[in-house]
């Protein structure tokens, strides 16, 4: 029978062979997928937990909330609790331009600076402690100019934000009259990053208010 399959060149024959191949291939893949899918799902969860651990004080649970839906660039909020009490709130935001209604939805003042990044939007995870300090800033995505804009991901630049009391600083770069030391030759990237932090602060304050913590 194998020989007949090989010799026969009719179109139906070819279709049968290909379909058979695809079916077997599909079965093999379904098997491998079954074996790996749980692990792959875990990978995403672990990644998120690791990212939160970098910017939050010690916590045992984190409640995630999508505050601005988007397939590529959602804004999310994480309320981290230890022993049932909130210890910190993390905000995932980016520098993409928000419309007036989006700003309203997030309770961000309409006149806030929305400086844009040089290249694709910068994505940050900003961690706040419950008493109003920035615990950490994690750069999730940055496609700025290598060697210049990418220096926002250095401890030196991040020290502008980390451990700062949110009401104790003016959140714009020094060039614009604020307190943030911008990077040399990377003012645009510095501005964009600071703008994201300012937006995150507004989001954090709004969440704290709604949680009745203050």
């Amino acid at each position: 029978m194998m020989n007949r399959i090989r010799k026969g060149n009719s179109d139906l024959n070819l279709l049968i062979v290909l379909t058979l191949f695809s079916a077997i291939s599909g079965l093999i893949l379904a098997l491998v997928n079954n074996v790996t899918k749980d692990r792959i799902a875990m990978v995403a969860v672990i990644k998120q937990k690791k990212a939160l651990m970098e910017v939050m004080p010690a916590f045992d649970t984190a409640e995630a909330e999508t505050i601005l839906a988007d397939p590529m660039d959602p804004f999310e909020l994480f309320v981290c609790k230890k022993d049932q009490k909130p210890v910190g709130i993390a905000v995932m935001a980016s520098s993409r331009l928000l419309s007036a209604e989006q700003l309203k939805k997030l309770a961000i003042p309409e006149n806030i600076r929305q400086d844009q990044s040089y290249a694709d939007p910068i994505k940050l995870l900003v961690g706040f402690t419950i008493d109003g300090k920035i615990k950490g800033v994690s750069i999730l995505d940055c496609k700025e100019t290598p060697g210049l804009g990418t220096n926002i991901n250095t401890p030196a630049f991040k020290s502008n934000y980390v451990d700062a009391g949110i009401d104790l600083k003016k959140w714009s770069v020094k060039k614009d009259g604020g307190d943030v030391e911008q990077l040399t030759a990377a003012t645009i990237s510095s501005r964009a990053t600071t703008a994201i932090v300012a937006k995150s602060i507004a989001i954090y304050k709004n969440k704290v208010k709604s949680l009745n913590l203050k």
Partner: protein
Amino acid sequence: MGLDNLKKELYRGVVTENPTFRIVLGMCPTLATTTSVQNALGMGISVIAVLTCSNIAISMLRNVIPNKVRIPAFVVVIATFVTVVDLLIAAFIPPLYEALGIFIPLIVVNCIILGRAEAYAAKNEVLPSAIDGLVMGIGFTCSLALIGSIREFLSAGTLLGYTVVPFTHKFILMTLAPGAFITLGLTLALINFLQSKEN
């Protein structure tokens, strides 16, 4: 197969018939995944896995596949192994999965794999085909590692993440597109030159 034969095959795959430098195939991953030695090796090992497995499978099936549909049939086999590798890397080596991105599924259109299937595995026994796949894959990995070392060293002064020379001024262009093209071009020229000297 004697050890001598294996050594001869290895020499063929890495030097005389090196897929990147002699046959000049599979350039997209060579340019895209060689920003660091680690990524280059990750890509190379994935290709070795797919190439060897697909060569074995195609060699086993070579008498069953009708001639007219051999290319689509090969593609189905290769795509299957590529997806398996894709899922395994996503599950067990997440950092590599993020580093290589879409270039893992793009292994399916890597001309090297289809080329070897057509030129060798379809016409030879299983063991020789397996070895052919293995040595060609190793050759490809070596060339990826070579380009990767040059680019990583010049752009960051490191190799595999370990600082070799702490540069103060880094040749950052090497991590970007132009650096990739120029490095590959110059390396190819150098190898051509050395080859002609030998002759």
